[in-house]
């Protein structure tokens, strides 16, 4: 499959990552190699494979809904890059 600049830009947008022109070119050729590798799957006949819901053989139980202590407000914002009082601060979204 040919990887176009348009596709790379689209994926970069979905990923919220920026690439400069050189990085885009590098990424295109790397991505082509990766796809070559994973396209091996195309040849496998999986028509009759029934997907099971989970990997586990053992049953997992549904938990009872019991309230319990969680992180304190202070702990929850401790690692935030910017805070205002007891809240996390972000740039203004609506003027």
């Amino acid at each position, binding site marked *: 499959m040919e990887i176009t600049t348009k596709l790379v830009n689209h994926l970069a947008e979905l990923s*919220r990552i920026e690439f400069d022109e050189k990085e885009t070119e590098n990424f295109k050729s790397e991505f082509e190699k990766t796809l070559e590798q994973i396209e*091996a799957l*195309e040849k496998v006949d999986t028509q009759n494979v029934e997907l099971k819901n989970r990997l*586990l053989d053992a049953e997992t139980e549904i938990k009872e809904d019991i309230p319990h202590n969680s992180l304190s407000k202070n702990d*929850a914002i401790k690692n935030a890059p910017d805070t205002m009082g007891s809240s996390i601060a972000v740039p203004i979204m609506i003027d």
Partner: protein
Amino acid sequence: MDYTKLSLLEVSKKIHSGEVTSEEVTSQIIAQIKASEKLNALNSYNFEEALEKAKEVDQKIKDGRVLPILAGVPIVIKDNINVCGQKTTCSSKMLENYVSVYDATVIEKLKEQDAVFVGKANMDEFAMGSSNENSAFGPVLNPIDNTRVPGGSSGGSAASVGAYQCYAALGTDTGGSIREPASFCGVVGMKPTYGRVSRYGVVAFANSLDQVGPLTRTVKDNAVMLSAIAGYDDKETTSVDCPVPDYLNEIKDDIKGLKIGIAKQFFALGMDEDVKIAVEKAIEFYRQNGAEIVDVDLKNIDLALSAYYIISSAEASSNLSRFDGVRYGFRAEKYDDLVDLYVKTRTQGFGREVKRRIMLGNFVLSSGYYDAYYNKAKKVQQLMTNEFEEAFKKCDVLLSPTSPSVAFKLGEKSNDHIKMYLSDVYTVPVNIVGSPAISFPCGKNQDGLPIGLQLIGKKFDESTLYTLANYFEEHNKSNFGGRDE
């Protein structure tokens, strides 16, 4: 006396019998960490608290308390596992200054045992890599040959165990990240059954494949560690509620009648000649000592890597979307608006390999490609699971090399990601099917570099893996115990 070279079980006995204090042992370990700092195995140290903890354990011993095996024993934790009050960086610029505000369940369990935490281990960024060269804080050096990689992504954990900086380390394994570095550093690494160990508080790479496990210098030490961390956790919905055996007591002295499956397809995947010779010798060793060698068929084993990169990247791309510069971690200094804050933060905060996998993940999940890639990979995963189930009807364990080569040179594969991915060709299928697997040293090549043997077990049958691995160790002691001094 130098206590750093002892095994975990040996040092524990000496501490608990009062022959030596945990404080003395911990001090020697700290000195060893400082002396081997150039390996870059640890991202952060916890020396003061470690010595405090050691003194606390010594007091308990003086008071005549009976303590668990791990009490007073210095341990290292991979830097993607939360230890409250300590940094958890995932070796990424994104989390460079992140300080954990709670303990992972595995840490709670080790704290209940009074283990001593000496530091957090370097790793590939967000556990993505096979050589530890993807760390934002520089590569880890292999303790046996400093010009070579220690393997990845738990490279710091394996190197610290191999270099006597601790008696055991925790790692995580999504596609081989415990076993491959264990193989490269000549130590023992266990990837438990998916669901055996809680992932609560472990920074997720690919939730359906990740599993925490121990790295140690001996098989018995490994069994002790797994008993300590395994078990159901109501905070983690994929942890399985089934009893945890005392793995140390479950180790048997006899391997007669155990069936070891060999898939011819394993040998067709390509491995170095010295690896092949060592693996064949190991097969012969088991045969001569009463195990039965049987042929099994794993027709689609060569597809595991492709399925793995699709599934793991898809999960990683959603997991890593939480790193956006808002709630925690790095935030770019300059940006125009909120969306630009996300973009600049992620562009500057993530390394190259992480970006590559996020992009691949978003590709296989995006409209128009989902069925052809992601759905197809899930079906191949099911196909392989069925194949392994069939194989395990004929045998108790499967045997293969851990990696097709010994530890390679730093920089040798860092510019060819496909070559790098192939280092995990034997380990990845195990995560795909959810089985447990152990890697232990089965020999050395001409240059003295360790070769790892992998045994893969039936789900929740880690005990048979420990029995077979321990039997090998008992008869081949010179392969074990870390680097030669």
